[in-house]
């Protein structure tokens, strides 16, 4: 179906370029994926985006499965595979090609400057991702307070298992919702 091909092409055109801009890991793309999926292409509603974000964080593996979920939402399994390949292939090829050169650059002033220079951009992008998801969520004090409490807990005790925190928080929200009805 031509419509399907167009959808898959759109996924490639969104995630392919992002692959080479995911500085400091997939989390740095969160804000842009939200912008593209909700604002530009209307692949999901804000509500659905927040749900997919939560599901992607509860699953194992590298934290970038959100793109696969968006692809799946757009075009089923072919969409999930297309989005994943588009997101991972360009950056993986780049690493594959540069891995050999990298050894030669070790210890040079350039190497340190690239590493130190990219770190603040990566930090800013990750924080932008948190802001983007907060905006996509329905809002309300419970969500804000939980996000702040989770931030403080995880910064204070970095060895804390985030999954346990997700489970407790999900359970609390569920219990409150059940009591409220």
């Amino acid at each position: 179906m031509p419509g399907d091909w167009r959808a898959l092409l759109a996924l490639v055109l969104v995630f392919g370029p992002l692959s080479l801009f995911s500085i400091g890991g997939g989390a740095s793309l969160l804000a842009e994926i939200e912008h593209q999926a909700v604002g530009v292409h209307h692949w999901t509603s804000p509500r659905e985006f927040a749900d997919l974000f939560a599901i992607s964080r509860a699953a194992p593996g590298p934290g970038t499965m959100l793109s696969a979920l968006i692809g799946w939402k757009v075009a089923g399994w072919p969409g999930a595979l297309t989005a994943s390949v588009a997101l991972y292939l360009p950056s993986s090829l780049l690493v594959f090609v540069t891995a050999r050169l990298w050894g030669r650059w070790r210890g040079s002033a350039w190497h340190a400057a690239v590493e130190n220079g990219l770190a603040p951009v990566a930090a800013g992008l990750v924080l932008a991702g948190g802001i983007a998801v907060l905006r996509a969520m329905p809002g309300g004090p419970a969500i804000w307070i939980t996000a702040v409490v989770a931030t403080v807990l995880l910064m204070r005790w970095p060895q804390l298992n985030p999954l346990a925190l997700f489970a407790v928080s999900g359970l609390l929200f569920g219990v409150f919702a059940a009591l409220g009805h």
Partner: protein
Amino acid sequence: MAEGGRRDREGAGKAQISLAAIAIAFFWLGVTSFGGGTAAWLYRAMVQRRHWIDDQAYLSGVALSRVMPGSGGVNLTVQVGQQLRGGAGAVVAVVGLLSGPLVIVIALAAAFARIAGSALAHAVLDGVAAAAIGLTFATGLVLVPRGASQFGQIAIVAVTALTVGGLRWPLLPVVSCLAPLSIGLALLQQRWRR
């Protein structure tokens, strides 16, 4: 001398690791590395348990993963697969790493789609998402450089977060401007210190 000999033997051992073994090892790494810390789990599985690569190769790989775009865990996996069996090793390792989580995450989403009408299910997911936002903020804040000499870097963090997150400017042009600026700043500071 002794170390060189050990490395040679390791090199000989590496040639014998089959693609199937690589695929299986990375498949398990994928489905068992929860919470996004794939690089740390990879260290345990591939360096400490299987001795497929040594500490130095791991650290060099981590450093490259940091400056290259892409998920750190996937970038490390590409490099380990490449060291073990070249291009085929890299492909097999990445496919092994991602296939398990991909199936699991879509199974979760499909299961959720069936109960998406339920207010309770939405409430639970809101709770998970709110805590996951906390994890995102904590990860970003840990990366923020500290110290009075880092004023420029902190400003770059703030400008990036506000333009991309707050004002919803597109990421590609923002990063294209800020990344070279930030690297230039780091270069200047290195010269200044010397």
